[in-house]
């Protein structure tokens, strides 16, 4: 009897615990800006430590303690979510990628920055990047940077084979065959089956729009003909054995980049610092061309993109907002972040005169930012948005792509399966959802 009562008490306590954890997050208190504030900031962007040092030197009253974390999807988001659920342990500020913002908004984890100053300061940012952190009438993060895409390729190897940078995806497929036929160890690129963010960007370029919001109802349109066209294109290259399917951002891939077994990479502007950092011996041999095209109208896409958000439970939301805006708009801060390779600034007019606008030795003296990425940035379909369960969608695609690489099904199957699974994910969150756009 006693035991039953104990169990009942435990259940009751657990229930109370669960409900309070969901509802009682104290609002960020705003206070006098001259007041002292100590803030913690989780970020993994290279170079951010230098920007934070600069801020701390200039702002003795608002001291920011940077904690450098692994990339968000490598466990840091999980840590933030559990800290938010627990109601303590979350940092005041955090790096959050655009595709993850709706998830944090859904868990009621972010402070609305609009009344704290972002409403006025929003004009400092590129519209579409601001749109990535605006939900309804609220601005939940300060935009930081994006990843307009281009094609990195080994100019030396291409020209030795008489190839030019492919202007269309058809030409790209021909180049893939020429390269692999000439040297069976060489491949044009890897289709990393575990990195569906990359595939998502390529579908974005082709004109797909996966997610939307119709009133209170989320719309999911992953398996559109446009996306299936992209998936089937890579299916054909994979079935012909013309691409590698090893993971990217892994040692095997770095080693292939170093020894020239992978000779191209459709990637974002920040990809240059990945290449120069991991294959330094290939310096001077790379060039950047515009992303190969599907149609005659030039279209680009964005891969990656990040913001600085203020998390619920912060000790001083006003000070945190002030720092977040400074970090992403101050020219000196932007220079320091650019030096680390954080991407394409979300602040307006950041190219001219900045460290971005100069020839790069790694690219054999090409000024790729001016030649390629500026136009790429201007040609992104900016109506693209995300859902609160984007991470799940990535997982479904990864699982399907990996299965295809292992000989079970195709990339097309993976895309179709991700559509169904994504609708189920949103339903599981208690949200309204329908297929279509």
């Amino acid at each position, binding site marked *: 009897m006693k035991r039953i009562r104990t169990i009942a008490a435990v*259940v009751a306590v657990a229930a109370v615990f669960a409900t309070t954890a969901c509802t009682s997050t104290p609002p960020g208190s705003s206070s006098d800006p001259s007041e002292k504030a100590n803030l913690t900031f989780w970020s993994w962007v290279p170079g951010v430590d230098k920007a934070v040092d600069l801020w701390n030197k200039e702002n003795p009253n608002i001291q920011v303690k940077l904690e450098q974390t692994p990339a968000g999807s490598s466990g840091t988001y999980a840590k933030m979510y559990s800290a938010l659920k627990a109601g303590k342990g979350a940092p005041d500020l955090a790096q959050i990628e655009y595709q993850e913002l709706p998830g944090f908004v859904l868990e*009621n984890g972010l402070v609305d920055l609009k009344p704290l100053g972002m409403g006025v300061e929003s004009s400092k940012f590129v519209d579409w990047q601001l749109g990535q952190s605006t939900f309804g009438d609220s601005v939940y993060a300060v935009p930081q940077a994006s990843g307009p895409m281009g094609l990195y390729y080994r100019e030396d190897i291409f020209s030795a084979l008489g190839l030019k940078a492919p202007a269309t995806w058809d030409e790209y497929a021909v180049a893939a065959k020429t390269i692999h036929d000439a040297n069976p160890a060489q491949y044009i690129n890897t289709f990393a089956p575990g990195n569906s963010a990359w595939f998502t960007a390529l579908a974005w370029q082709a004109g797909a729009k996966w997610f939307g919001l119709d*009133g209170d109802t989320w719309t999911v349109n992953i398996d559109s003909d446009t996306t299936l066209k992209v998936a089937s294109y890579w299916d054909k290259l994979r079935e012909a054995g013309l691409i590698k399917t090893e993971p990217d951002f892994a040692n095997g891939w770095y080693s292939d980049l170093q020894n020239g077994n992978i000779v191209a990479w459709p990637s974002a502007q920040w990809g240059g610092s990945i290449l120069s950092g991991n294959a330094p011996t290939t310096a001077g041999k790379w060039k950047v061309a515009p992303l190969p095209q599907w149609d005659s109208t030039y279209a680009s896409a964005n891969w990656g993109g990040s913001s600085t958000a203020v998390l619920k439970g912060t000790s001083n939301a006003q000070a945190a907002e002030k720092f977040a805006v400074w970090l992403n708009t101050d020219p000196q801060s932007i220079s320091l972040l650019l030096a680390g390779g954080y991407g394409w600034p979300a602040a307006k007019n950041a190219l001219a005169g900045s460290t971005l606008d100069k020839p790069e030795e790694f690219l054999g003296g090409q000024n790729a930012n001016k030649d390629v990425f500026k136009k790429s940035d201007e040609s992104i379909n900016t109506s693209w948005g995300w859902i609160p369960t984007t991470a799940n969608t990535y997982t479904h695609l990864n699982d399907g792509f990996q299965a295809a690489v292992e000989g079970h099904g195709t990339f097309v199957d993976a895309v179709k399966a991700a559509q169904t699974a994504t609708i189920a994910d949103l339903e599981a969150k208690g949200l309204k959802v329908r297929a279509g756009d």
Partner: protein
Amino acid sequence: MVLPLVYAIYESVTGIQRSGAFGQGGSSPVFVGLDNYITALGASAFVASLGRVLLFAVVQVPVMIILATALALLLDAASAWGVRFFRSAYFLPYGVPGVIASILWGFLYTPGLSPLVNFGSALGLNLDFLGGGSILWSIANIVTWQYAGYNMLVIVAQLKSIDADLFEAASIDGANAWQVITRIKLPLIRPAIVLTTVFTIIGTIQLFAEPLVLKPLSSAITSSFTPNLSAYNEAFANNNYNLAAAESVLLALVACAFSFGFLKLVTRGGSPS
């Protein structure tokens, strides 16, 4: 002890209801009965992951226990020279944290970096440790490397506790070394073997760190490669604690069933000496 279990069961029968696109109209937990269990068991990837760890256990447990027992008997039989060295050497991998061990082996498995793969290709062998057909056994290799020495030590401890008089009596009766092993040592170290087997069953069914670390290196490891990985992914990547709880409870039931099933099997068929 029971609190986390009760909480897990509570979470596993709970769902969430929201109004508004971002739940701004309020959200509340609702009782959903067995819905999460139905979702878990309806997901072919989760069911496949259960099948995968069971297959893993069927192969891994006997290999591990036979190897550990053989090593223990060898060390026990060997002359004094080198015994201490080998005992420490076999035990050493246990001191390496599982994550580090997986990273080390990950390097040995990655084409382009691995001396093993290079050596194989020099001999004309195309070794693919990270492919779909081999990855489970590549993980088995890491697990065996790590824990065989530990299990061996548990068995050695029991071997040491055998009364020396028994061996003396056996040699007077003219028993050879093999007979000593099969008639005296093996029956007397039975409890240690049973114990290490149960631990190994539980350990293999809960397979987690090794596939998590190798995941970035291998396209064969999906987000739900093992049930634990699936629950981890649901809880921390997808924020679906309820489904994660249901999966965890199911996994605990499977581990329980197999451990107790094994114990029941050995106590029924066993001949206590």
